[in-house]
Every structure is written in C-alpha cells, then in structure tokens.
C-alpha cells in the first residue's frame, strides 16, 4: 500500500512538472466528436516528444467523449506487466494518468479495467493474478483523482489471450490490463 502511495506521488510530481505550459493547450469542446473533427487537445500523432505530456492535459480538460477520439492519448488503453508482476511500469503511467484525470473531470463516466495474464499457471490462480493487475491500475487512477465508484476491475485470467502463441513475445502481449469505457 505504502509503495503505491509513494509511486503515485512520484508520478504526480513528474506529471506536474512536465505538463507545465500545456494546461491550456486544448479548447474544451462539449460535443460528440464527428469523424476527424474531434478535439485533438494538443496530442498529435507526429508529436512523439510531447504525446505523453499533452496526455495529462487531455485527460484533465477533455469532455466526456474524448475517449472516443482515436488521436487522443485516451485511445491508449493497455498497460503491460512483467511476469508475475503487478507494478505499473513508468512507460504506462502517462496513459493511466490521462484516464484518471479524464475520469476526474467527467464524474459521470464509468470504466472497467480488465486484467489478463499469460498462459502459464492455473486458470483460477491466473484469474486472481489478472485481478491484481486490474486493481493496480485502479489504485493508481484513484490516487490520481478518479473515484472508486467509476472503476470496476475484473479479470479474464489467461482465458482471453490477445495472442495465442506459446513464446515470450505472445506472453508479454497477454500480460495486460485493458481500460474499457462503459458502452464500448
């Protein structure tokens, strides 16, 4: 538990520093995004160096349909884990934070985080391991402003692999938490 709080504080601190200057980058548009005209909130597909940074702003300021925008950082839905691990790696913290801020700004939104594991291990224990991964995503989101009632965590264990292979690259793809918005 303590590890989580420390981790979250570090993330929050980093995010706070790096997002300076981008807070007002995005005009808030409260309308359903038509194809191609959705608010881009500063995140562009070419702007690799700023994508993570602007994500924070995207989540914090976007309207309740921003998660439908394929160009938004909110289109990033997967968090990957190491074998037997439940720690959210640094490279996925921006994604988690963007969704957390977005949920904070849009309290009516609900998500499900679906935990998954690779094929090694028993089915039921993998359900519990996948749950732990989903819970890890949820805990970080709550620290970053999302509310408990907005996030349901469930686990598919090893039952719904994205990749069916029996090698490390398939396993790595399947050790995953997926963020799914209600209605999707």
């Amino acid at each position: 538990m303590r590890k989580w709080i420390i981790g979250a504080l570090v993330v929050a601190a980093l995010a706070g520093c790096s997002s300076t200057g981008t807070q007002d980058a995005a005009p808030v548009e409260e309308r359903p995004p038509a194809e191609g005209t959705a608010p881009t909130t500063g995140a562009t597909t070419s702007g690799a160096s700023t994508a993570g940074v602007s994500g924070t702003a995207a989540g914090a300021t976007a309207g309740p349909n921003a998660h439908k925008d394929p160009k938004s950082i909110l289109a990033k839905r997967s968090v990957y884990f190491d074998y037997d691990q439940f720690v959210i790696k640094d490279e996925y913290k921006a994604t988690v934070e963007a969704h957390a801020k977005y949920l904070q700004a849009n309290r009516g939104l609900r998500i499900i985080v679906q935990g998954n594991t690779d094929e090694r291990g028993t089915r039921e224990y993998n359900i519990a391991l996948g749950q732990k991964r989903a819970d890890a995503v949820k805990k970080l989101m709550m620290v970053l402003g999302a509310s408990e009632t907005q996030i349901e965590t469930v686990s598919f264990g090893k039952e719904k692999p994205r990749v069916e292979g029996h090698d490390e690259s398939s396993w790595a793809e399947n050790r995953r938490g997926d963020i799914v918005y209600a209605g999707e």
Partner: protein
Amino acid sequence: MGMNQPRNRLRRTVRLICLLFVVALLSSFAARAQLTIEIVGGAGTTVPIAIVPFENEANWPLGITGIVGADLERSGLFRLIDAGGIAPRPARAEDVKFGDYRARGADAVVVGSMRPLGDGRVEVRFALLDAVKQTQLAAMTYVVTPPQFRATAHRIADVIYEKLTGDAGVFSTRIAYITRNRARYELVVADADGSNPQAVVASNEPLLSPAWAPDGTRLAYVSLENKKPVVYVQSLATGQRQVLANFRGSNSAPAWAPDGRRLAVTLTKDGGSQLFLINADGTGVQRLLSSPGIDTEASFTPDGKALLFASDRGGTPQIYRLNIATGVVERLTFEGGHNVSPRATPDGKGFVFVRREGGRFMVAIQDYATRQVQVLTQGPLDESPSIAPNSKLIIYAAQQGARGILAGVSTDGRVKQRLVSPAADVREPAWGPLSR
C-alpha cells in the same frame, strides 16, 4: 458494469434461450466428440481376471462383459485373462471348473447370464469367484432394458473392483470438462469412461471451473459471457441455471460444501480476491477471511469443517487451511515457491495440488500427517486436478503440443492414463460423486 440492469437482464434471458437452443442442437452430434481413455503406464501388480462372456450375451449388439473388461483394464489394476475356448462355457458359479482358469493364471473369474423377460426387460446375473480360494465373492441380479446395459456393466465393474481392491469402484461416476473449438466453449458431462458426452452449456466466451454438487444433480461453473467472471449453478436434470455470484468485480472458483447447501467462492467486490461463503441459491454471502493478498481456489475438507485454499499472503503462492469455526489459518506447503489449486482428497488424508518447479507445472499430492509430498506428473503445463470419489485416481488437464488434453494418474503415481478427444481442446476436468 452493473449499469443498465433491466437491459442486461433482458439480454441475459435472450442469451439463455439461445444457449438452450444451441445445447439442444449440440447434443444431437455430441457423440462424435467422445473421449477415449488409453493406459500409458501400469501398476506394478495387477489382478489377473477371466471374464467369461455371459450366456446369451451375443443376442444383443452391445453386450456387458466387453464394457466390464474395458473398465477394469483401464483402471490399471487388472489384467484380462483370455476366457475363450473353455467348453462348456460356464454361466453360473457352480458350473465353473476352477482348474481351467487357474491353468491360465487367473486369480478371479466372472460368469453370468442374460435372460429376456418377454416385456423388453432383461435379467442380468453375474457372479465373481476367487479362483485361488475357490469361493464366491459376489453375486448380483439386475433387471434392466437394453439402453441400461452400459450402466449395468459399469455397476458390475464397480462391484468387482470393490471386492478385489477394497476401494469403491468409480466406473459408474460421471466427469465434467470444458471443450474449446476455436471460439466455441462447451461444458460437457460424460460417463467416467468418456462415453455419452452431453454438452450442458455452450458459449462463445470462456467457461471454466466446473464443480459438482455433492449429490451430482447440479454443476457450478464460471462463465465470461457477461464480459467478466460470473458464477452460475445449473441443474443437470432441467438445464435451468441461475446466477450464484455476480457481484462487482470478478466472481470465481466455486467449491461446494459437502452438505450441498453452501459454496465457497472467490469474490473481489470488497477489493482483492477474497474467500466468501454463499448459499447455493445465491443468497447469504458472507466473507470468510481478510488478507492483504490473493486468497482463492477454495476446497472443502470432506468433514466440511475446513477449507484449503491458495494464497500469496506469505509472498509466494502457497496452500493454507482455514478452520471455518475458529478462523484459524495454517500454512500447509513449505517446499517449492509456487503451490496452488489444492483439492482435499475425499478420504480426508491429504490434498492434491499443482506445484511450479523450474517453470514446469506438475500435479502433486501431500499427506496431512507426514507432510510428505509426492509429485505425480511431469508437466510442463499440468493443472486443474480433480480426485475420483474413491481417492485413488486423479484426472487433470495437460498440454500436449499446443493442444489441451485430459490425463489421469493414480494417487500412488503408478497408473497413468491419457484421455484422447478426436476434435477439441479439452480442459478443466471435474470428477463427479459416487452415484448411489
């Protein structure tokens, strides 16, 4: 997600109706997916037994003695002695000339007869004889119709097995398992020898963790059809099912209490994977334990007083025992860094579980009193062990190439079986109770 309840319920109802329809369709061609069981390793000593074809048996296409012999041989504890060519062929105990069978090495002889009663029913008689002591060990009479021949043969095999080994026979029991064909999952119930497979649930989403009610009338299982693990209980007689646990989060790992009135389940509704008790109708959910980590895969001890479960509370997944009345938890496994899926053996002496060692998952058995562990299988991905009600055999899921198969191993590790399905991926076996 718990939102939009009425619509979900409607959708569920529609889905259930579709499901029942599909089940009806499936059962018509289910027979082609029958499992066959091969012995791949035998016991050190076997009982040599001569089974004399029953009098008049040739009048029916499906006889009795062929099935009896196959049952006994598959158990790995018997060796069939050729009973042919002895004339006149004995049909009753008093007709047996023991010397004929001793000369061929048989320690036991089975004789019998089949007599039509004129109303479509058939009287089946058999006697089991000890050829060494020249005594009768058992004799039974059954009045049955031809569709009951197979079941009658299993009953006869049960009697023979029990008389000659001292343990209950399990040839009349049933097994449940899950098959997968691409994106099609079925929960199948079959006889213990793999015959008569019937799909009782079919779904486009994964099914897992089937668990037999102690009286064999219902199955609990987990389905992901609702985009999350939900536990159902389904009647085998009517096919009707009801939700046992569909709380916020994941609902999984059902285990029946021996009285059949309650189940242990793993729920995450209050955070983390934790153990709960719930009535068989889904009411009265009650938390059993609070741990900071994972508690799951509960299995009741046969007296119903304790639960075995897997937990990572000590850092690695290990097996623990909870005394339900006192709440006292005791760690049971100490060797190895990963021990999960405990199943209490019905004889109350110990438990079967899955151990990970060097990246391999293997089925093992541990004795409560001695704490001695015997690893029974080699892996690499063995899981879901389920123990026969006589505590002598374990059926489990294994990986052969990229395919899931079922395999069997005796609890002493000597007899090994492979259950071969012609088509699908097979997994999640669950051995049903003794039929009485």
